[in-house]
């Protein structure tokens, strides 16, 4: 792999982790969605870059499928199925305030890197940076799930975690059987579809999509 490709890939990864961290702090649902699209585009870009040098049609296919299903189909699905009106411009409340969230995200990034380092040294792989960033972004995705109380950002957090897992995956297993493409092409839109339906049901029955605030089921009186 040429130096330029390595540097570009590293840039894409740096922006990937920044976009994941940005997902924890954006104030509008629409902005969260936009950042998710950016993140998916960065994942596709990384797949294309890694598949360019020792040419791997498999990675190219993965990139294309990611582009179509995550960057196009999912935002369209969510827009069509979620409640109408000013939904996407409403301001989100934060569970913990933004600077604290950012510092925790930074800490998790360090933790993910550290955890991935001993893995990276253990075996040959296409791009050690991908694996470190993938693990770090997985943890930050967990943070997105934890701090968001609204339905759509939580779904986007889960999808961001999957993006991170696949980011690590493209460096690990460039010749992973067709399963990965199958999963991204069918599983992920189905996920978005069902979750959007559930959000719609929640909105109709409960009157709000702030699902994180629902806490009726618990132990004790």
């Amino acid at each position: 792999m040429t130096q330029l490709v390595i540097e570009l890939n590293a840039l894409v990864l740096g922006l990937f982790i920044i976009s994941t961290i940005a997902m924890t702090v954006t104030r509008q649902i629409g902005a969260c969605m936009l950042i998710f699209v950016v993140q998916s585009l960065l994942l596709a870009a990384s797949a294309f870059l890694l598949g360019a040098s020792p040419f791997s049609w498999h990675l190219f296919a993965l990139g294309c499928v990611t582009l179509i299903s995550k960057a196009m189909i999912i935002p369209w699905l969510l827009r069509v199925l979620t409640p109408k009106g000013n939904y996407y411009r409403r301001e989100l409340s934060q569970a913990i305030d933004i600077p604290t969230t950012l510092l925790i995200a930074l800490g998790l990034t360090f933790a993910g890197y550290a955890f991935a380092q001993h893995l990276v040294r253990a075996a040959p792989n296409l791009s050690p940076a991908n694996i470190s960033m993938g693990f770090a972004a997985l943890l930050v995705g967990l943070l997105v799930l934890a701090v968001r109380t609204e339905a759509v950002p939580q779904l986007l957090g889960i999808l961001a975690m999957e993006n991170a897992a696949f980011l690590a995956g493209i460096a690990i297993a460039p010749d992973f059987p067709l399963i990965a493409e199958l999963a991204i092409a069918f599983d992920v839109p189905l996920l978005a579809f069902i979750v959007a339906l559930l959000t719609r049901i929640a909105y109709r029955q409960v009157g709000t999509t702030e699902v994180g605030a629902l806490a009726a089921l618990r132990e004790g009186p």
Partner: protein
Amino acid sequence: MIQSIALNIAQLAFVLLLSPLFAGVLTRCKEIVQSKRGPSVLQPYRDLRKLFAKNERIPEDSSWLFRAAPYVIFIVPLIVTLLIPVLTNFPLFFAFAGDMLGAGFIFAISGMFFTLAAIDGGNPYGAMGASRTRMVGFLAEPVIIIVLFTVSFVASSTIPYIVQQHWVHPLANFFAPSHVLLLIAFFMVILAETGRLPVDNPTGHFELAMIDESKALEFSGRSAALIKWGGYMKFAVLSIVFLNVLTTPWGLASSASPADVAIAVALVALKILILIAIIVAVESSYAKLRLFRISEFLAAAFVVSVTAMITEILHL
């Protein structure tokens, strides 16, 4: 020796004489984007000339700080100009007199005098602006330090000239994540330190919403001119640090010949104009942040800079 002194004077002249032009271009571009015609790009020169000719009025109860501050604010950017690569990429006379941290502290002197003079002037809005500026300042500190740390780590030195030689070599390093992320972080810091949107509105007139502008309300005549000019020079110096050291350390004169220096002047001016275009784009796209949101803005800059540091140190 003569050459060295001549180059230093050329650097000072560049910053001193061209900084109002850059400010004028920035204002004109912003107005054009807003579908207005905007004042001439030479308007800041006319403003300075007008202010120098006016009488000065000083509050009765103010101390020597109020009278000294404008001079400090005017001189400090000139001192910093001596330390950074403005036109040449080889170290000049004062290059090793202070490094980037030193430059930061020198700016802090100017900031301190300005803040104290604003309170000294007795204007309540001045005191308010002073405390707000300090808040923005201390929030931007960690970002600046991380940025300086990262570039020093690569160049094994904190002298701007040496950093400039090591930072973006080879060219592929331009796309390195540490580079790009540092750019973003430092850009956000420039917006905060020079009082531009989305941190502060430089064209606003509402004193309760001002951060930087309200400190200068009490000054008049020559003091006001010096403070204005100092502000233009601070913006020019920060842009030059950003462009010549961090972003595009190319296009500087590598020899002392007048032709080279002339070309360098043109190229540096061009780079600053491109930066101004980007700033105009950013300023026209965002609304002013509410005061408590500034900490979030700068926390985001901090995160970006730390990520840059991580990727650099872990050699990604």
